[in-house]
Every structure is written in C-alpha cells, then in structure tokens.
C-alpha cells in the first residue's frame, strides 16, 4: 500500500520501510522548539525526567516571542528561566529580543528547518513548516521536554485528507483565503488526527509566504500537520538560508487518502471568519455592515513580507479610519528591516497605523492591542475564540492582510477589490 508524503517522512525517521495510518511510532527529531510560555514548563519536566543535557544543542530552538519585550514581571521571569537554561545547555538557536522574531516566521527564514525534517514544537502553530515539505506538529511542554531529553517523540501515524488545488487566485486573494475557505468547508475538527496534504497544479500559484499561511492554520481544522510538495519555489526559498541538507519526499502514486477536497483558486473570494470559530466563514461580500475598532496585521500566520507588501499596497496614499487602531507587526527583524528599506513602514505610519517590533502579543491577548468589552477587530491572526484577544465580550474577525488593511481604511469589514 502506498504512503502519503507525511507517512514517508515518518517512516524515514523511525527506521522503517513503511508505516501505516493508526500505527504508533517513535520518530527521531531534527528540531525541538519552544517559546517563552511553553519552555519554562518544559524545563521543569526536563529536570524531573532526570535529564542533564539536551540530546543535541543544535537541534533545539528557544524563541522568546509571546510576551516579549517582557510585558510584566512574571513574563520577565519566564524569559529569564529560558535564557538561563539556553546558556547552560549551550542552545545554538536561542533567540532573544533584538534577534528574535515570531518563531514560525523565524525558523524557516534562518534556514533552521528544511524539507524532509521532523519537527515538534511546544506551540500549536508548529505545523507551519509543512509549507517547506517538512513534517512538523505542535505538542505540549512535556513532549518538548521528552524531545529535548531523547531527541524522539511518539506519534500516531496519521491518515490524510488530500487537498487538490487548481487555478490561479485573483488579485487580493491569498493563502489566508485558501485556508479559511477550507476550514469553513470541513470545520474546526474536520481534519482531527489527520494530515492535510496539499497537491495539484494550483500549488505553484501560491508563494512560499502563502503556503506558510496555509500550513500554519492546518491546526485550526484539527489537523496534525499540513504539508506541501517541494517544488522550485521551495528550493529557491531554502537556498542561501541554510547549511542543512534537505531531503525531498513525495507521496506514492497509490497513496491512500481518507478523502479528497478540491479547491479552485480561480473562484475563491476574500474570506472572513466570524466570531467565535475559524469555521464561521463568509466571503467578504457576504459580511454585511460591520463597524470595527481595531485592525491587527501580523502574527505567525500573516506577518511575512508578502503580507506587509499587500497591506502597504492597500494603505498607500490612504489614511486609516480615525476610529480604527491599526497595529502592524512584521514577524521578524529581517522583515521589519525590509519594511523600512522598501518604504512600507513609511506608508504604514503615514496612513496612521503603528508599526511594532516583532511579538505574538495581541494575537493571544497578551499585550500590544487588547480589546475592551463590545469591541470588534479585523485581524490577520489565526483564532477568534471567545476572549482570545482580550475581553470575553469582544469579537475577532479573521481575514487576510488585504481585507484587514481595506477595513482599517473604511472602518468596516471591506473587500479590498472594491476599495
């Protein structure tokens, strides 16, 4: 029986010729990741396990991105714990303020993760690296601790859903619209315990940044991972960023899928997920008249350079609505610098938006843009659960950077194609 792309990577990393869906395997890990919220818990468990040294100091990454720059004393203490541990363990990929970026934008950018890798991260959006053709999945802190101690993780081999993409997206239709459309179609548990494997000639129409956005939100459909085939764009992206050897895996012709879903990119429209679940999707034209108080453009989902460029394209020569606080957060220092060099930061500031240092801050209601009761926000982030970005009576509308920027200008949920 043929294997899916995910199954082939897993088989390769557990020393087996073949694996089958449902089988439990222990895989060797190429990277173990944690952030300032999950790593302190992992360190405690690591010590309890009786571990002394991490299995490989070059295969652990610690990124201080969630409540940084330290938002309060407790957060500062958590970062200090991570810093001390990383120093003691000589962690090569430790990123603190000044070098750090949002972890899932940073690791691919620095070439720390490449095609064919197996990655676990104590952050649910670790599935982002599927865009590179890697197997990567989110786990908890105890799994992270076990991964740091032994370089292994237990995995139940997932069955897969095949997502066949065709056509070319229209102007202002992006990876965010692809994934929101998919989640709307299958629901927030539509891919529970499964892989989402993206294929089809439509893949080549998606930029790497689009693919990162799509893989990033695989977890929002309950998926274990969301993976793309490796093509010229993937190789061009990895080239020059890494000294690591990448390895290309392809699904077998006779691979078995639980089901196949077809998405025609030609007919896809800018899409918005209404409160309080990512599956509550409507096209932007069906959104109705919704006045908003805040816009956030950033996060591990949509804080990359393509996202910044499209936001700037919409905001250029325009002003954001006086009633809309518009917060733009390039995801890494490199992207931030690119925003300055390309004149995007100037466009944002002239439009009346603020440009922040990289942080996950507002996405999870940490800091840098908390919502009051009754407030509504259009954000390019990944979750619109109750209270996610602040007060339990606030509302989050998830959308692409283009929709978010257009909505910032008008003060209402707006189709950028009609601005």
């Amino acid at each position, binding site marked *: 029986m043929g294997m899916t792309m995910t199954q082939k990577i897993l088989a390769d990393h557990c020393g087996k010729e073949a694996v089958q869906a449902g089988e*439990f395997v222990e895989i060797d890990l190429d990277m173990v990741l944690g952030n300032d*919220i*999950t790593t*302190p*818990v992992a360190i*405690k*468990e690591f010590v*309890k*396990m*009786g*571990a002394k040294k991490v299995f490989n100091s070059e295969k652990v990454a610690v990124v201080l991105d*969630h*409540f940084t720059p330290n*938002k*309060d004393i*407790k*957060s500062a203490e*958590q970062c200090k714990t991570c810093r001390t541990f990383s120093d003691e363990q000589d962690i090569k990929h430790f990123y603190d303020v000044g070098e750090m970026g949002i972890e899932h934008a940073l690791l691919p950018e620095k070439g720390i993760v490449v095609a064919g890798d197996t990655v676990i*991260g*104590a*952050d*649910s959006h*670790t599935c982002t690296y599927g865009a590179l053709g890697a197997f990567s999945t*989110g*786990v*908890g*802190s*105890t*799994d992270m*601790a*076990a991964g740091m*101690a*032994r370089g292994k993780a*237990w995995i*139940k081999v997932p069955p897969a859903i095949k997502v066949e993409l065709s056509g070319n997206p229209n102007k202002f239709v992006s990876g965010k619209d692809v994934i929101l459309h998919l989640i709307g179609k299958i629901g*927030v*548990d539509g891919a*529970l*315990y499964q892989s989402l494997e993206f294929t089809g000639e439509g893949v080549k129409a998606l930029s790497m940044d689009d693919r990162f956005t799509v893989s990033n939100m695989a*977890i929002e459909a*309950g998926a*274990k991972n969301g993976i793309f085939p490796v093509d010229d764009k993937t190789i061009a992206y990895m080239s020059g960023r890494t000294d690591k050897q990448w390895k290309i895996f392809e699904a077998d012709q006779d691979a078995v899928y639980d089901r196949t879903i077809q998405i025609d990119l030609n007919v896809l429209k800018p899409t918005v997920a209404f409160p309080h*679940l990512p599956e509550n999707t409507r096209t932007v034209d069906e959104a109705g008249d919704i006045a908003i108080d805040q816009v956030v453009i950033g996060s591990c989902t949509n804080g990359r350079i393509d996202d910044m460029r499209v936001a700037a394209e919409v905001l250029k020569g325009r002003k954001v609505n006086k009633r809309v606080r518009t917060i733009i957060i390039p995801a890494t220092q490199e992207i931030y610098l690119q925003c300055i060099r390309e004149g995007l930061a100037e466009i944002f500031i002239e439009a009346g938006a603020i440009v922040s240092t990289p942080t996950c801050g507002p996405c*999870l*209601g*940490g800091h840098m843009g908390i919502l009051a009761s009754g407030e509504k926000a259009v954000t390019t982030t990944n*979750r619109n*659960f*109750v*209270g*996610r970005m602040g007060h*339990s009576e606030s509302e989050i509308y998830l959308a692409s950077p283009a929709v978010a920027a257009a909505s910032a200008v008008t003060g209402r949920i707006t189709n950028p194609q009609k601005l």
Partner: protein
Amino acid sequence: MIVKGKTFKYGDNVDTDVIIPARHLNTSDPKELAKYCMEDIDKDFAQKVAEGDVIVGGKNFGCGSSREHAPIAIKASGVSCVIAKSFARIFYRNAFNIGLPIMECEEAVEGINEDDQVEIDFTTGEIHNLTKGETYQSQPFPQFIQKIIHAGGLVPYVQNELRNQ
C-alpha cells in the same frame, strides 16, 4: 481506580483560550492557573468545583493552543476526569502526558446532564451516572497510550528510557 463527583457540562469545541485565558499564562504554577480555570465560559467554575468533579464536553474538546497549562489548570482544580465526544489532538497528548484522565464516550456525553453525580471506573472504562441510574461504556485507550499511563505519565516513561540508555 474509581473516581466520583458532580459534572460540569459544556458544548462542542471548548478551546484552550477559555480553559485558561492567555492573560494568565505569565505563570505556570498549577494552583495559580486553577484559580482562572474555565473563567471565560463559566466564571464561577473555580468556586464551584470540588475534588473529584468531572468535566463533560462535546466534540473537539481542548482545541486551539498547545498550552499544557490547560490540562494542568483542570487537573489542579481537582477535576478527576474529562469526558468528551472527541478531543483535539494536542490536548489529548498533553492530558496523558501530565496524567489527567480523559475519556471519549459519545453516549455518556448525551446521557449526562449538568450537576449529575457520576462514578468512573478507569479499569473497566465504565461511567456510571448515579443521578439517572445509567451506565455508559467508554472506548479503551490504544495499547501504546496504556504504556504511558502504566508508567505514570510521560515523565516517568522518559526517566525509564534514560536509565536504560
């Protein structure tokens, strides 16, 4: 092992942001986290919950973030078991890894009401609803998971592995 308590019942897709809102994630102290458990869907939960109580959810319980703080907060509240139609995969792993018992059982979720008294036998997988006089049979855990449960969680499991290296 048998546990007994009253039930708190919630709907589908109970996410980790309502189980423990991120504004409280600047600590990992279980007692501190327990104070805010379920705060955004049931603000009096921390006051009402007693040792042994059981949370009952619909499908996709624990969806969202990978924060282990969510099962830790539930466990530290005194909750003895979470029963749901299905669990989000990261929450599922985390619960086993930290030693919070969970059970998948649609029939129990349909049958149990808020504030029922239930008794759960982890050995047989039977859930007795003492209020309604009903019994539901949950799915057994996969063998590999039982190995981790048997070891007492992932920490002792890895301890053994490291010792054997």
